[in-house]
């Protein structure tokens, strides 16, 4: 079995967000880039599957659509344990553009399981995984919170609104993963980092693809009114405010 993990290169989750060019572009000066948290969990689970000899996992590839600046993030994924990496050389563009690039990578590579995260922590799209599966015309399973391999099929727990379901799906498919898929993300060990330098990282050109949407402008939220502080022995006053001022009780 060959597994492809799609990796979105995102600003560290503690980044103070700023915009430039009249609020039409994200200002990435001084930003630390990381593997999107859900993609990191997907990669972690993939490594667990591969290490368990009872699973027929032969190869793990990571892929990102992005400029050369995204390569350290791919190297990090190699250091965590992926066997090889692909970078599609393009500015990442909208979800449709990205999914089209990934579909082309999948068509060139024959993967049995393809993992995406439930969203990128920057644009919060929740779109690429589903789009990719539709372009490939293969099943997708969303909100995956656990996954194991059984008789060549994947057995998956997914969240539905108001519960959980266990489903099974034959390969190939796209799994859109969320928290729970792995407990803690893996951190690359020194040995992994050394080995990652020698692992193959292939750069492929982008294919033509149309964007369907455009991020036209960014706006910061309205600054909030300062917090009204109440003395710890005035709990009654808090209740009064919630009832009569905020009107939320």
């Amino acid at each position, binding site marked *: 079995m060959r597994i492809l993990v799609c990796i979105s290169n995102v600003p560290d989750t503690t980044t103070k967000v700023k915009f430039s060019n009249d609020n039409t572009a994200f200002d990435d000066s001084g930003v630390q880039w990381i593997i999107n948290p859900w993609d990191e969990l997907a990669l972690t689970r993939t490594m667990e599957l591969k290490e368990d000899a009872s699973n027929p996992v032969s190869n793990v590839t990571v892929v990102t659509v992005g400029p050369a600046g995204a390569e350290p993030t791919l190297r990090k994924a190699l250091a965590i344990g992926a066997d090889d990496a692909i970078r599609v050389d393009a500015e990442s563009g909208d979800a449709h553009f990205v999914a089209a690039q990934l579909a082309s990578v999948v068509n060139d590579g024959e993967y049995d399981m393809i993992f995406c995260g439930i969203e990128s922590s920057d644009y919060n799209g929740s779109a690429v995984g589903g789009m990719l599966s539709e372009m490939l015309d293969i099943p997708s399973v969303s909100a995956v919170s656990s996954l194991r391999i059984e008789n060549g099929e994947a057995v998956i727990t997914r969240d539905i609104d108001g519960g959980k379901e266990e489903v099974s799906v034959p390969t190939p498919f796209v799994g859109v993963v969320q*928290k729970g898929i792995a407990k803690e993300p893996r951190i690359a060990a020194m040995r992994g980092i050394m080995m990652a330098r020698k692992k193959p990282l292939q750069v492929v050109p982008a294919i033509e693809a149309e964007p369907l949407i455009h991020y036209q402008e960014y706006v910061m939220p309205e600054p909030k009114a300062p917090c009204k502080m109440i003395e710890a022995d005035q709990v009654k006053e808090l209740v009064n405010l919630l009832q009569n001022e905020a009107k939320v009780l």
Partner: protein
Amino acid sequence: MSVLVYTENWDGKFKKLSLELVSYASSLAKMVGGSVTALSIGKVEQDELSALGAYGATNVLSVDDAPGGLDNQLYTSIITAAMEMTGSKVLVLAHNNTGKAIAPRLSVRLKAGLATGVTALPESVDPLVVPKKVFSGKAFAKVKILTDSAILTLAQNSFELTETGGSASIEAFDPGVDVAGVRTSIRDVQKQEGKLLLSDAEVVISGGRGMKSTDNWGPIEELAEVLGGATACSRPVSDEGWRPHEEHTGQTGKIIAPNLYMAFGISGAIQHLAGVSSSKCIVAVNTDKDAPIFEAADYGIVGDALKVLPELVTEIKAAKAQ
């Protein structure tokens, strides 16, 4: 230009979420000059279906012999058939697990630009430009749809219910799709019976590591019960196993937007706030006056949550009794 809205049901009933979607679609239809058709999949009684009319749907398409489980490809085909049949150019769905699963597939199938997690009505309709949250709530973006057709997933609790008092005609709809192609098979379903879901709750009482131990959750549960709300927690609390994973809110957990969010012993890390900052009113109780939660809160008490909580339960019970 007609608007199609997918109204999901839970065991035959629509929730507030579905009505929010219809309300939104109906305001949107006024802007683009058209009417709203609601699509319902699964067995729902006529009364329940026609109730959608009160929020602005003029027509309801009902596919009532749909298969039990959600197969993303099958649902994509059903909704595509409804879009084609009604000639709709805009589709509205919820930004929940279902919407996130099928909207992207529909975007490709219908060649329709997709904006997810939309927070308000469009600011222009030609071209269609809608606001959405980005960077986990740290900013908003205005998304321009570049295609003729558009798909919007609406963030929960971002649109008020608006009763228009109309009535809807109901039509049985046969999408003519083939279930033989379904490849995901459902082995087991576990519903969260009887419990108010965190994502549906108007009041959420939440505890962090400052609550010290799983044994101290009694008053949090009691407060939630008194207020008819749900309980939540920060990530370390669910990692420690003090509380179940479904309760973890924040960037990597659930994203919620209740009317009232009360945080006890939660520091207010940016990743936690990403899941709760859209709440209408936030109350924080924390021993550290410099805790970042106070920057996000509307009302705050610097003090020991373990002492404040029982008093709060008593005072709220007293206020409710009046």
